[in-house]
């Protein structure tokens, strides 16, 4: 899968039931709300211990170019993190000296186009979605980050944990000075 224009969205598995689809959509919305409110402690609770969180850097290349920019994990990536690595990044916010987070950045995550399908593992579900992560900071700093996600969520008791996420940001040049946001 090398097409970076959009993530593969054709159904690979069977569509999940209405009930499961609803439960996972609600999970995505809850996650977005936690990120909007910088509730990273509760967000971290939603991350599986074996999490892989990946947001590759996307170069502009001709269609004939078969370079795998999406799944080749040796290439440059904004994020290519395990859970402990995500927690390391988040721990910066607890130091009290993350100067560029004070005053606080204002976030809104809009999650759409949710599709849920079954996988070979009875307790794991593939979830497609689109994100619009908006940030505004200080007076006029404003960023709109838009892209696709493909996740694996695992059912644990009555809730779900994120096992895998691949987020494709549509920027070539990140139109911002940094990426202090998770999608």
């Amino acid at each position, binding site marked *: 899968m090398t097409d970076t224009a959009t993530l593969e969205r054709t159904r690979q598995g069977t569509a999940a039931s209405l009930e499961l689809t609803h439960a996972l959509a609600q999970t995505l919305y809850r996650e977005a709300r936690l990120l909007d409110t910088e509730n990273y402690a509760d967000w971290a609770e939603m991350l599986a211990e074996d999490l892989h969180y990946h947001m*590759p*850097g996307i170069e502009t290349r001709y269609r004939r170019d078969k370079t795998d920019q999406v799944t080749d994990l040796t290439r440059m990536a904004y994020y290519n993190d395990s859970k402990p690595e995500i927690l390391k990044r988040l721990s910066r916010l607890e130091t009290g000296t993350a100067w560029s987070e004070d005053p606080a950045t204002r976030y809104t995550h809009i999650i759409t186009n949710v599709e849920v399908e079954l996988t070979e593992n009875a307790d794991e579900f593939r979830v497609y979605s689109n994100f619009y992560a908006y940030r505004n900071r200080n007076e006029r700093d404003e960023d709109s980050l838009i892209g696709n996600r493909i996740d694996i969520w695992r059912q644990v008791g009555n809730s779900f944990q994120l096992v895998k996420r691949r987020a494709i940001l549509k920027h070539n040049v990140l139109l911002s*000075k940094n990426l202090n946001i998770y999608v």
Partner: protein
Amino acid sequence: MRFERIGREPDYSRYMDLKEGWLDRRIFSDADIYEEELYRIFARSWLFVAHESQIPKAGDFLTTHMGEDAVIVARQADGSIRVMLNSCPHRGNKVCFADAGNTRRFVCNYHGWAFDTAGDLKGMHEEYCYDDGDIDFKNHGLKNVAKVSSYKGLVFATFNGDAPSLEAWLGDFRWYLDMILDNEEGGTEFIGGCIKSVMSANWKFGVENFIGDAYHAGWTHDSGCRSMNDGMPFPPIDMENSYHASVNGHGWEFGTEGVGDLVLLGRPKVMDYYNKIRPKMAERLGEMRSKIFGSVASASIFPNVSFLPGISTFRQWQPKGPMQFELKTWVIVNKNMPDDIKEEVTKGVMQTFGPGGTFEMDDGENWENCTTVNRGVVTRHERLHYRCGIGRQIEHDTLPGIVYRGQYNDANQRGFYQRWLDMMTHDDFSKMPTRPEPRLGNVAETRDLPGLFAL
């Protein structure tokens, strides 16, 4: 070749007094000064355009900018590298839209003018529309730059036919560069891909930060350091055994403790790797350089490339107007590292100095606000303070360049702006001062230098 602007010859020396240690804020936002920088600095300097490893095979290319001029960097069938304007000589359209790839031809989308990877015009759509004498194919290729040259994997190009050789341009700074480019047999390579981001800041703020500003690290990046190292703050700086070294506007600030930047990377396996090769590094580069590598350090190559030896981020600050730059970020690794160490380095760089990195996140806002606030019509007439450590210059037996003791210093920044001033005020390259007088001379290989440098 000269690229002159007509009718503007201001006295740039009034924008700074580096012996006193101050700068005029207008150099960070003034549109006329910025235009002049494009002519006098970017159109005349040797500029980094690629790492050899990015375009290993014939037909491999990448696109980048020299100043604000778009260029293609392409590997030729004979192994040489050509650098040419990414602009069709017919109407000026871009002929290559990709960041990188492999091709036999660059074909303009507008009228189908087709160029080979050397830039030679090979044909066009409906060629019959040109009568005999209308067009000379030989003179309508993609304009090649004046010179292309490599130093240990780094490819540089210049529009300036009068520029000195790349070796002379880098001068004694090669002694320092070899610490990242030549610390192990096999040399270096870039990891695939390039992360680009945009900051609303003047390009010089990025360069001067990396060239000498160890001072900001312990404060700006306290949060980054603690997050990567289980809550530990920056180690105290040893002002006696740390230095600034400046050569022709290039600069490297460094400790000699050997581990500081490797600690900040937060990847114990990478630390182990370098500790393992350090005895060989000492044989290869001398004991002093083996102790400098891995220490808290940062460096810039004039005018707009920076890197962190040990942390392995490699970056270029591309000017996009007086108040904006595009930051291109790569990861540089030793070619002979095992794959898992390369992966560790890459992850470490992106967790510290990628746009979402624990260090990078706190830099951009500083530089943006330095730029925008300095622009106020009253504010811009206030001088900025660059005097830190101004009395600490020393002569050092081993270290080439203009050397100052104490890593917390503005010395390399002053050296950078001195070179900036030299370039802004000298029309004739041959009359431009070399700062300091070189020790290495024409010695090609810093490893082969006599005893003085092998310490």
